[in-house]
């Protein structure tokens, strides 16, 4: 009996939290079914079936000459490419820091640790000025390069490599006469994969959600990622045709695939890595 009574409050509180987190998403779904007139006049959490959704989708597709789909693609390029490169760089550095004793190792490590604490937002402006100097501002690289260096990812990779790559196997490889690069690829890389997937996903979401960096770096509409694209639509105001409806529908269309990706990749997450990090 006590167990049953005890189950009510924990479940209720947790469901309340779930409702809080889902409310804006539910609102987004219902709002996207409404046309411009209905958005401001009908009850907001009840969908409309007057064909508003198809109308909104058509307008979304035609805004600024099909820019929406370009923005989706750009977001995918920045997040996918940036996360892939960041994971590669972090895996190499994390492995190097975890498995070798060399002069300057502590220095490199502390330098990277301070990097974790520097607000990324602060760096975006000087990064823009410096990349302008070498003519890279406004290119895809101006968003990709700063996304590739992630001190936190290196930190996680170091922790993970320390935990899962046994020194004896590296020694065995050396006795067999294998080069260090070959040892890394054939012995160290495979056990590190679960950790690397986690680093990739964290970095993917970080870049996908980033706004200030591409906002500062890019000036041409056709290079914007979704976040900057929506912001540029919103900041031109609602005097143009139904910008609110278009943005609401766009938010829905762009959020759904990422949610699907997340839910399907859930079991590959090794988030114990993140907390284990502080102990290591």
């Amino acid at each position, binding site marked *: 009996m006590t167990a049953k009574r*005890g*189950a009510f409050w*924990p*479940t209720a*509180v*947790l*469901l309340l*939290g*779930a409702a809080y*987190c889902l*409310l*804006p998403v539910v609102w987004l779904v219902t*709002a996207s079914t409404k046309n411009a007139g209905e958005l*401001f006049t009908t009850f*907001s959490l009840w969908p409309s079936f007057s064909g508003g959704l198809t109308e909104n989708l058509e307008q979304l597709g035609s805004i600024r000459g099909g820019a929406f789909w370009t923005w989706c693609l750009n977001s995918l390029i920045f997040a996918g490419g940036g996360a892939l490169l960041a994971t590669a*760089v972090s895996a*190499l550095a994390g492995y*190097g*820091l975890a498995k*070798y004793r*060399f002069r300057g190792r502590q220095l490199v490590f502390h*330098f*990277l640790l*301070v*990097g974790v*604490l*520097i607000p990324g*937002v*602060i*760096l975006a*402006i*000087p990064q823009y*000025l410096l990349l302008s100097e070498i003519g890279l501002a406004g290119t895809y690289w101006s968003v990709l390069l*700063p996304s590739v*260096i992630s001190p936190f990812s*290196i930190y996680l990779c170091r922790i993970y490599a320390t935990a899962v790559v046994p020194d004896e196997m590296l020694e065995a490889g050396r006795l067999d006469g294998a080069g*260090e*690069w070959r040892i890394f690829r054939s012995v160290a890389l495979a056990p590190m994969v679960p950790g690397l997937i986690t680093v990739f996903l964290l970095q993917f*979401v970080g870049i996908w*959600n980033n*706004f*200030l960096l591409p906002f*500062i770096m890019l000036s041409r509409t056709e290079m914007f990622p979704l*976040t900057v694209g*929506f*912001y540029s639509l*919103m*900041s031109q105001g609602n005097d143009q045709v139904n910008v*609110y409806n278009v*943005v*609401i529908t766009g*938010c829905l269309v762009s*959020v759904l695939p990422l949610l699907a*990706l*997340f839910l399907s990749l859930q079991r590959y997450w090794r*988030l*114990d890595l*993140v907390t284990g*990090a*502080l102990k290591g």
Partner: protein
Amino acid sequence: MPATTSRRSSASLAPRTAPWLFVAPAVLLAAGLIALPLVYTLWLSLRGTQVSGSGLGVRREVFVGLDNYAHVLSDPALLAGLGRMLAYTLITVPVTMALALVFALLLDNTTTRLKRFSRIAIFVPYAVPGVIAALMWGFMYLPGVSPFTDAAGALGLPEPSFLGPVSVYFSVANVSVWGAVGFNMIILYTSLRGLPQEIYDAARIDGCSEVQLALRVKVPLIVPGLVMTGLFTIIGALQVFNEPNTLLTLTTSISTDWVPMMQVYRDAFVTNDLFSAAASSMVITGITLVASLGLLRVLQRRAFGED
């Protein structure tokens, strides 16, 4: 790129140079994209323009020492922005951490039902960019489209105001809390699951209730996870930009210098006062470093009994 360089020389790799080749890409990128920009900002913050001659004088860049710092630190707009940032941080961080911890403990509690659904639902906002989250909540704050206004009207309650002088802090903080709770909850829940279950049995035999078990046994054991998530929540709060900057497009309650980062952006790109922007940036960086390193020191001493 890194791979080919190391592969080419792999035959001659002695463990003396190999480690450097592994860390080289990261070190080069960190030097160019973190250290150099910071040094550049510091340099800019000590420079300024001087107009020599009268009328159409020549503008040239000179070293001005700490003038920019004196200027920004006595600028009422920046100080007001710092105050708002602090207020926002004091709301966001405790609420985010408290909710994340409560949800994580409830997920870990054996009697809770529907855990899988709740866990996924609360994690959903993590996949939503801050800009989109701010737009969604922003629309829901607007009287014309807000479900809260509709609900209050149906219940005969006064119309809620989300964008008033005081409520706007909570409205901006709410967007960030909404976005951050799920991720922090998952991290803390993962830490809880990593604890050995046997200690719970011992505590239960001693007559410990589930609430006592949570507060006296589980929470102290996941302090490292709490420090980690708390640290990142604070760093995130101190550099807040996306949420207020996006809400700006929907309301007049938020000024273009609402938080320091918005003013830095405006100084750098709208009014072209790079030197002030650089000095303000250094101030924000300083506050972030002092806050996070200070927190780490205090907590490490308290929680782990080491320095």
